[in-house]
């Protein structure tokens, strides 16, 4: 009996496993986030997330290039859509944080917002079905860009010494406690900010993708000519509902990432 089980288990794979076939549920794991290289160029393996990130960047670039190629006073088609996007970033993200003076950062914020959003969105687009942002290198790279930008903006706006005093002295604290509090302010401004920016985006996309995998795999695994069919249908419905939730979360995470970028820029350039 145990031998038969072992033989059966060795022939199990996620595509053929079903309920009561002797195969266990092929639970998704962190291994599902590691891809074999599609091809190797000069010793560097090109994987699916890399391709997706490049596609996301190229798509955003191409879309806005085409939309604003011949801008018209009365926008139509792609230009209309692009203007809605740009105005959304300006009025909901940039203006509340930076005010009108911050309009020079609009291209930066628009790029970040749509790049992150599209990479997130790839998690639910059929056939692509992987959010590139769930691999930590992509949010980390973006956070690094944001980090360098706000430090540069701060130093250029106030000079190194004033800026350093700004990020080291917490507002409202009495002078005698500063030796204890300044290190916290410094650590939170310099190290925690880019770190949380990265982790928040990555963890949300990873958890969302894992959740979809759990129910997606379950609806396939439970699909058999038995009571499992009922569970399978339920699981499939849950997958659809969760996909809807993911659409919201993907947009929300791109929004939060960009809002915090705008806030860090505002914090770096505002006069204290």
């Amino acid at each position: 009996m145990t031998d038969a089980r072992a033989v059966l288990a060795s022939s199990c794979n996620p595509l053929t496993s079903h309920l009561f076939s002797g195969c266990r549920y092929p639970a998704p794991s962190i291994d599902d986030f590691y891809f074999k290289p599609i091809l190797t160029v000069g010793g560097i393996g090109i994987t699916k997330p890399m391709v997706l990130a490049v596609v996301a960047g190229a798509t955003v670039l191409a879309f806005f290039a085409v939309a604003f190629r011949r801008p018209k006073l009365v926008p139509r088609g792609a230009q209309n859509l692009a203007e809605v996007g740009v105005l959304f970033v300006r009025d909901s993200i940039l203006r509340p944080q930076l005010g009108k003076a911050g309009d020079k950062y609009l291209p930066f914020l628009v790029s970040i917002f749509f790049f992150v959003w599209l990479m997130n969105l790839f998690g639910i687009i059929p056939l692509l079905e992987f959010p590139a942002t769930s691999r930590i290198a992509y949010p980390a790279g973006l956070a690094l860009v944001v980090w360098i930008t706000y430090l540069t903006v701060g130093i250029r706006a106030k000079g190194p010494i004033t800026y350093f005093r700004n990020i080291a002295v917490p507002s409202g604290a009495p002078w005698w406690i500063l030796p204890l509090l300044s290190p916290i302010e410094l650590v939170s401004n310099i190290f925690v900010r880019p770190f949380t920016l990265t982790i928040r985006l990555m963890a949300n996309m990873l958890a969302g993708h894992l959740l979809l995998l759990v129910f997606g795999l379950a609806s396939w695994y439970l699909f058999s000519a038995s009571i499992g069919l009922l569970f399978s249908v339920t699981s499939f419905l849950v997958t659809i509902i969760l996909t809807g939730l993911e659409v919201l979360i993907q947009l929300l995470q791109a929004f939060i990432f960009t809002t915090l970028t705008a806030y860090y820029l505002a914090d770096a350039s505002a006069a204290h």
Partner: protein
Amino acid sequence: MAPDQAGRPPGRGGQRPASEGWTYFSYLVGGMLLYGGIGWLIGRWTGLPVLFPVGMLTGLALAIAMIIFRVTRS
């Protein structure tokens, strides 16, 4: 709101932005990270591992104090 908010950009009004919350969060993380780390190092040095949680709690307390200062005096 206190008058020293005048330096902030217009359009923000008297409202604290939502991202203010993330600042508090980063104070809490930063405080625990920094003083927990210091506590851990001193704990290793002196052979008293209890200094690690003590350091974390100290950092947490200081971070909460910072948040209170920030909210009440600015």
